[in-house]
């Protein structure tokens, strides 16, 4: 039941979402949006999207309102840092 017959002698993968595994489980904090002050959510107009622009893992959607894929969000907190209205708070996974 080992890995010997997996067909590879090096690490490789086909392009796929989460090809390095579900990186969401690396996280200790996750971003929580306050849509009452998030610019696109509040205005209903596609705008700002600084969280989408700066997210290094491309797990934030460019939608109204923006959403986060928590399967792969590593919880780095960059979105929270760059949000001009302070709409994103990093919340401990324990809560």
């Amino acid at each position, binding site marked *: 039941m*080992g*890995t*010997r017959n*997996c*067909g*590879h*002698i*090096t*690490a*490789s*993968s*086909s*392009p*796929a979402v989460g*090809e*390095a*595994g579900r990186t969401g489980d690396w996280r200790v904090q996750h971003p929580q949006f306050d849509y009452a002050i998030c610019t696109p959510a509040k205005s209903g107009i596609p705008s700002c999207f600084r969280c989408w622009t700066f997210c290094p893992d491309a797990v934030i959607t460019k939608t109204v309102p923006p959403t986060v894929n928590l399967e792969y969000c590593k919880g780095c907190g960059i979105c929270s840092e760059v949000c001009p209205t302070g709409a994103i708070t990093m919340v401990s996974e324990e809560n």
Partner: protein
Amino acid sequence: MTSATASKNKKQTASETKILTANYAAAEAVKLCGVQVISAYPITPQTPVVEKLMEFVHDGSIKVEFVTVESEHSAITVCISASAVGARVFTASCANGLALMHEQLHWAAGSRLPIVMAIPNRAVAAPWNILNDQQDSISQRDTGWIQLYCRNSQEVMDSIIQAYRIAEDVMVPVMVCYDGYVLSHTHMPVEVPDPAAVKSYLPDYVPHTILDPADPRNINPVTLADPRLNAENVLCHGYFELRYLLQEALLRTPESVEKAGREFGRLFGREYGILDHYRCDDADLVMVSMGSLASEAMDAVDRLRDEGKKIGIIHVRLYRPFPAEIIAGAVAETGCRGVAVIEKDVSYGYEGALCTDLKAALFDYGVNVFAHSYIAGLGGRDVKSAELYDALSRSYEYCSKPEGSRRKDQEWLNCLI
């Protein structure tokens, strides 16, 4: 057929003898091996390898993509990329240039790419020194590369050809090491094998993973501790399993080296193996060394034999993977009482690296002999035949001492401190 045509044909198909330095022998070997991509950054004393290959590119006698780069780190990186997409590649470096490659040496071995690199061994700074010792390649012994050491230009020529065969058999990169200046810049007759015969000796390189735009792959993605399912739902190796596979490949490499050497002998008349022996029959003391020291010591051993002192030489051609069982068996077979390991490197804070490895092998296989460590020739310090004669004479005296008093402190040969 006219005689002119006959002689022309003969020239095209037969081997010919040329007077070559080890550097030029390396370049000539690359020409024979169907190498497709070369990337190297010049560094003394490796520079003539690069210059000669550039000459071949310029005169059209070799059809390769020669990628010029700004550093050794980039040179090996080009080789890694080219090898990964299925090209047979070559590079050469030494000393601080080889040290700069260090990180990528691990990448090459971990990616299981059959890259061949020539290393005209040179001292590593500080202080700056361009002359010979083997500290540079010894410092890379744990990167997962195979290391072959050569005693003359012919062995360099032949070992590079064999290196491709070995590398592509076990999918592990190979360093072909030869002493800087002592060999790299010394002219000697070299038989250059028949190109057609080399072609038949080296089948085309088939990469283990075919990279194809129609079937895109991410190679070397993050691979953490445990096996995990890939995108196709197949349970794949974790880092630990991948590294175990590399170790497995290295442990079966001695067999591959022997096979490549035997087959080479069958085709070209010069057979190669793991070790080379000189006057080892009934030896009481065996000198063990790597590279040109093993051939330089032949004179000293001849003199000692003339005096009735039974001393022989074992040259370690394959240093990584370390052929522990083979070398322990070879030492045991001589029936000697001790070995004197004379080498141009030191594992700082301990002793010569070869000596440590050899002692571990002897212990493991229950060969109870003494082992003396001699450090010689660092930074190009001349190692004269008389000094080898004296060193071996000193160790030989321990053969007649009672067991338990045969230990000897390491010695730095001809250190004038």
